[in-house]
C-alpha cells in the first residue's frame, strides 16, 4: 500500500522541500523588488526630462490679464466713457457640481433674465478650463448679500468685482461714442487672439469701434502656480497690462445736450463743426437710446422696443441718414454760377412762379406761387427762389453742376475720423447710365438745382460742406477725436487738423457775395430764417431748406394723424458763424419738420448761442 507509506510524514524531506521553496521565494522577492527598481529607474532617470516637463506644465500656467480700456472725455474734460467696478455673479463650471441645479437655485435667489442665461450658455461653450464665466453683472448690495448667505450650497459660484464700461451720458453719446459689447462669434474670427485673450468686450460702434485698437491697450500676463483645481497659489512672474489710451474728443457735451433738447419731440439730426479745424463739436441724432443698455447684452424687451419703434432710435441720422438737401444747395449752386460765369452779381431774372423748358410741357413750380419778381443771385438765395436756380442749373448743365458740388463734398466721403458715415449721392450723367441704365433728362438737372431728385446728403456732409463754404474753400477733415493721451507716460498727442483740399479758382469777391447772401437769410428782412435773428449779437450765415418726403411705405400702418405728420417735408438748415471769421458750422435736419426757417433754424440758433456764450471756456479751437 504505497499510499499508507506516503502518509507517514518525512520531516527531513519536508524540511528540504521547504528550504528549496524558501530559496525560490527569496529569489522571487528579489526579482519583484528589482522590477520595481527598474521601473522607478525608467521613470525617474530615463524619462526624467519628459516627466519633469509635464510636471512643470501642470503647475505653471500663463494667465492673461485684461488691460483697462482707455477713457473717453469731451473737449472740456467731462468723462463720457468710463470703467466702473461692479459686482458680477460668475460661475466656474469645473467647480459646480450640478450646473442646471445651481442655475435654478440662483434664479430663485436673484433675478436672472433669459437673455443673461442664454448669453451665459453661449460663453460657457467657448471658455477654457477653470475660466470664471459671468452670469450677471451689476449685482445690487442686496443680491450680493443674498448670494453670500447661500454660498455654502452654491459651489463654484463666485462674486467678483469687474470693471464694466459705463457711459454717464449714454443717451447723448450713443450715436457718437457708440458702445462696447461682448465679443461675438464673428468678431472672434477677426480679432488678434493674443491681444484679446483676456478681453471680453469690444467696441461695437462709434469712437469705441473706430479707435478700438487705441482704447484697448496691451494684454499683460502673469505666470502663476496653480493647483489641480486651477486655483492660483502664487504669482511667479508678472508683466502688467498696458491700459488703453485715453481719448479727448472735440465733442462738447454741453453743446450736445443743448442740441438734443432743442429738438423737443422732433426726430432729426444736428452736426456742428469748427470749419477751421474740422473739429466736430456736436453730433446729435434724435431720438436716441441709452448706450449702457448694450454693454452687457441688451434684453429682448429693450431691443424689441428700440427696433420696433417707428422713430428708429437706433438709426444714426447724423451719419447714416441720407436726405435730399433741398434749398440748402442753393448757395453752392449760386457760387457755381458765379465761378462758371453763367451769372454775374448783376444778372437778374424775372420769377413768375414757375419755370418751363423748351419742348417740355412740364411746369417747374416755385414754392411761392405768385413768384418772386425780378431778382439776382443774392435775393434768390435770401428768399430761396426756385425759378432762379432752375434756370441757373439749366445753364450750368448737370456735368458742371455735378463736378462743382462734388468739390464741396456732395456725394463724397467726408473721411470722418470715426467713420460709419454714408457718402450721400451726387448724381451725374455717368452715374445715371451706370446705375439706372438711362440717359440724363434735362428736367432732372432742374430739380437737382433745388436739391431734390437724386441728390442726397447726410447731416455730417451738410455740416462739412457748410464748413468748406465758411472757410472759403478749405476742406478740413471732420474729426471727432481731439487728442490721445498715453496713461502711462501722461503724454498727450494732439490730432492735427487735416486740410483735405483747397478749392481754387473762386475769387474772394464771389465768396463774399455768397456769404453776404447767406447772412441776409438770417439777418435780412426777407430772409427765410429771419425768425431767428432776434437778439443776435453776432453775425450768422445760413440757408434754409425743405425736402419733400416721398410716399409712405406700403407696410406702414394707416393712421390718418400719423401719416399726415410723417408726410410733412423735412426741414433743413445750414449755417455758420460768426460770418467774418467762422468758428462754427452747423447743419440741422428735422424730419417732417415742415419749414426749415421756423423749425430747423431755431435749433441751430440755440446751439450757436450756447457756443458763442461759452466760447472762452471751450479752450482753443
Amino acid at each position, binding site marked *: 500500500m504505497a499510499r499508507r507509506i*506516503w*502518509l*507517514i*510524514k*518525512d*520531516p*527531513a524531506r*519536508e*524540511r528540504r*522541500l*521547504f*528550504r528549496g*521553496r*524558501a530559496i*525560490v*521565494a*527569496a529569489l*522571487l*522577492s*528579489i526579482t*519583484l*523588488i528589482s*522590477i*520595481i*527598481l527598474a*521601473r*522607478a*529607474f525608467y*521613470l*525617474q*532617470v530615463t*524619462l*526624467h526630462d*519628459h*516627466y*519633469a516637463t*509635464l*510636471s512643470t506644465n*501642470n*503647475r505653471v500656467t500663463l494667465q492673461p490679464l485684461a488691460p483697462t480700456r482707455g477713457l473717453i472725455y469731451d473737449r472740456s474734460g467731462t468723462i463720457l466713457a468710463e470703467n466702473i467696478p461692479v459686482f458680477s455673479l460668475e460661475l466656474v463650471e469645473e467647480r459646480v457640481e450640478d450646473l442646471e441645479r445651481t442655475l435654478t437655485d440662483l434664479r430663485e435667489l436673484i433675478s436672472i433674465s433669459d437673455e443673461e442665461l442664454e448669453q451665459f450658455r453661449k460663453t460657457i461653450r467657448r471658455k477654457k478650463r477653470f475660466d470664471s464665466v459671468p452670469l450677471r453683472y451689476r449685482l445690487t448690495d442686496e443680491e450680493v448679500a443674498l448670494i453670500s448667505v447661500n454660498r455654502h450650497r452654491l459651489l463654484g459660484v463666485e462674486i467678483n468685482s469687474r470693471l464694466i464700461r459705463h457711459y454717464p451720458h449714454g443717451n447723448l453719446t450713443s450715436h457718437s461714442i457708440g458702445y462696447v459689447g461682448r465679443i461675438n462669434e464673428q468678431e472672434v474670427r477677426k480679432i488678434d487672439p493674443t491681444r484679446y485673450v483676456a478681453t471680453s468686450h469690444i467696441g461695437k460702434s462709434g469712437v469705441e469701434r473706430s479707435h478700438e485698437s487705441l482704447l484697448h491697450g496691451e494684454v499683460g500676463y502673469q505666470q502663476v*502656480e*496653480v*493647483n*489641480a*483645481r486651477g486655483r492660483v*497659489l502664487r504669482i511667479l512672474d508678472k508683466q502688467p497690462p498696458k491700459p488703453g489710451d485715453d481719448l479727448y474728443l472735440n465733442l462738447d457735451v454741453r453743446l450736445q445736450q443743448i442740441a438734443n433738447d432743442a429738438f423737443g419731440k422732433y426726430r432729426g439730426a444736428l452736426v456742428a463743426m469748427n470749419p477751421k479745424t474740422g473739429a466736430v463739436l456736436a453730433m446729435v441724432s434724435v431720438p436716441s437710446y441709452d448706450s449702457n443698455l448694450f454693454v452687457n447684452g441688451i434684453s429682448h424687451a429693450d431691443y424689441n422696443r428700440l427696433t420696433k419703434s417707428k422713430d428708429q432710435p437706433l438709426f444714426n441720422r447724423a451719419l447714416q441718414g441720407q436726405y435730399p438737401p433741398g434749398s440748402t444747395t442753393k448757395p453752392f449752386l449760386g457760387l457755381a454760377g458765379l465761378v462758371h460765369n453763367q451769372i454775374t452779381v448783376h444778372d437778374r431774372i424775372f420769377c413768375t412762379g414757375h419755370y418751363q423748358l423748351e419742348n417740355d410741357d412740364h411746369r417747374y413750380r416755385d414754392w411761392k406761387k405768385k413768384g418772386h419778381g425780378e431778382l439776382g443771385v443774392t435775393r434768390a438765395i435770401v428768399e430761396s427762389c426756385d425759378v432762379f436756380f432752375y434756370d441757373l442749373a439749366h445753364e450750368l448743365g448737370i456735368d458742371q453742376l455735378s463736378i462743382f458740388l462734388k468739390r464741396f463734398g456732395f456725394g463724397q466721403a467726408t473721411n470722418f475720423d470715426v467713420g460709419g458715415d454714408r457718402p450721400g449721392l451726387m448724381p451725374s450723367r455717368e452715374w445715371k447710365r451706370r446705375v439706372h441704365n438711362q440717359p440724363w433728362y434735362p428736367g432732372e438737372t432742374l430739380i437737382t438745382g433745388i436739391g431734390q431728385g437724386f441728390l442726397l446728403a447726410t447731416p455730417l456732409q451738410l455740416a462739412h460742406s457748410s464748413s468748406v463754404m465758411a472757410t472759403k474753400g478749405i476742406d478740413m477733415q471732420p474729426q471727432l477725436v481731439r487728442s490721445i493721451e498715453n496713461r502711462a507716460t501722461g503724454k498727450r498727442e494732439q490730432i492735427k487738423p487735416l486740410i483735405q483740399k483747397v478749392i481754387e479758382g473762386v475769387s474772394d469777391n464771389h465768396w463774399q457775395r455768397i456769404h453776404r447772401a447767406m447772412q441776409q437769410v438770417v439777418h435780412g428782412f426777407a430772409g427765410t430764417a429771419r425768425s431767428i435773428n432776434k437778439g443776435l449779437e453776432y453775425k450768422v450765415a445760413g440757408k434754409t431748406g425743405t425736402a419733400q418726403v416721398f410716399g409712405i411705405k406700403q407696410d406702414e400702418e394707416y393712421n390718418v394723424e400719423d401719416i399726415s405728420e410723417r408726410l410733412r417735408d423735412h426741414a433743413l438748415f445750414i449755417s455758420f458763424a460768426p460770418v467774418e471769421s467762422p468758428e462754427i458750422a452747423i447743419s440741422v435736419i428735422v424730419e417732417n419738420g415742415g419749414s426749415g426757417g421756423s423749425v430747423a433754424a431755431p435749433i441751430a440758433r440755440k446751439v450757436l448761442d450756447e457756443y458763442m456764450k461759452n466760447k472762452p471756456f471751450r479752450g482753443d479751437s
Partner: protein
Amino acid sequence: MLESSSAYHGSSFSERIHIDLPLLAGLLLLSAIGLVTLYSAGNQNMDLIWRQVTRLSVAFGVMLIVAQIPPEMLRRWVRPLFLIGLAMLITVLVMGTVGKGAQRWLELGFARFQPSELMKLAVPMMVAWYLHEKPLPPWNRHLAVALLIVMLPTLLIAKQPDLGTAILIASSGIAVLLFAGLRWRLVAYAFLLLIPIATLLWHYGMHAYQRQRVLTFLNPESDPLGSGYHIIQSKIAIGSGGLYGKGWLNGTQSHLDFLPERHTDFVFAVFGEEFGFAGIALLMLIYLAVILRGLHIAAQAQDTFSRLLAGGLTMTFLVYLFVNIGMVSGLLPVVGLPLPLISYGGSSMVTLMAAFGILCSIHTHRKLLKSS
C-alpha cells in the same frame, strides 16, 4: 533533525516579550519613513500624523499581543477563526454597509469591522493547518480541498467587490501551497488555465469599474481626465522626482493637488517625487530586508504549520507592496491596496502587524532542543 538557535540562548528582553528585533527594526524604520512621507503628503497636517501615530501604536500593540500567542494555540484556533470569518463574509454580502460603492463593512454598533481583514490571516492559517498533517508535496485531492479553502473566501470578497483584498487572500493561500511543495508542473498548468478563466472573468465576473480600470491601465492616455488621470499624474510625480527627488515637502504634483489619494493608495508617488530614485532604492532595500527576514523565520520554524504560515504571510507582504507600487508606477492596473506601513489607513495596518506578530511568535516560541 532538530536545531537550536544560537540567537535565543539567553533570556534577553526581546526574547521574553517574544519580539524579533531585526523584524521590529525594519517595521519601525518603514513606519518612520511612512510618517515623514505622510507629513508631506497631508500638507503638513499634524492631526493626520497624530491619527497615524495612534494607529501605528495600536497596530504595534496588536503585534506584541499576537506575538505572545504560541503557534500551537493558534493552530487550535484556526478552524473556528476561519469559520467565523466565512460566516461574517456571507453576512456582509447579505446586509453589510455600503461604503465607497462596495459592501465591505459590518456595523457592530461600536465599530465597523471588515471581515475580509480577518480572512487575510485566517485563509493562510487554514491552508497551513489543513496541509500540516498531510504528506508533502500535497496530493491532488488535498490540493483540491486546499484550493477550495482559498477560493471560497476569495470569491466572496471579490463579490463585495474588493479586488485588491481578494488578490491578497488568494495569493496568501497559494503562497502557502507553493511552500507546501506544490509541483511546478501544476503551477504551469494553472497559468495556462488562467487564460480562459481570465476571459470568462472579464465577461461575467467583473464589475464595469473593474473592467474600466484594466482598460485604463492598458492605455491610460485614452482617458486622461477620467480614470486614466490617477495613473498619468502619479507617473508624472514619480518621473519628475529624478535621481534625488525634489526634496521633502517640495513635491509639486502632490502639494498642488494634481495627485489624487496622495496620502492613501498613491503615497508611493509622493515618496518617489520628493526622494527620487535614491529614496525608492533605500525603501525597497528595507522592504526586501523585512521579507528576507520573514523567509528566514519561516525556514527556521520547527513545525510544518509554522513554516507554511510564516512563508505564506511573508509572501503576502511581498504581493501587497508589489501590487501597490506596481499600480502607482503604472505597471499594474489600479487596484485599491495601500502601501504597507506607509499609506494612511486603518484596519489593514492592524491585520498586517498581527501577521508580523505571528512571525515573531513563530520565531520566539521555538523549543530549544539540544541536538542529539
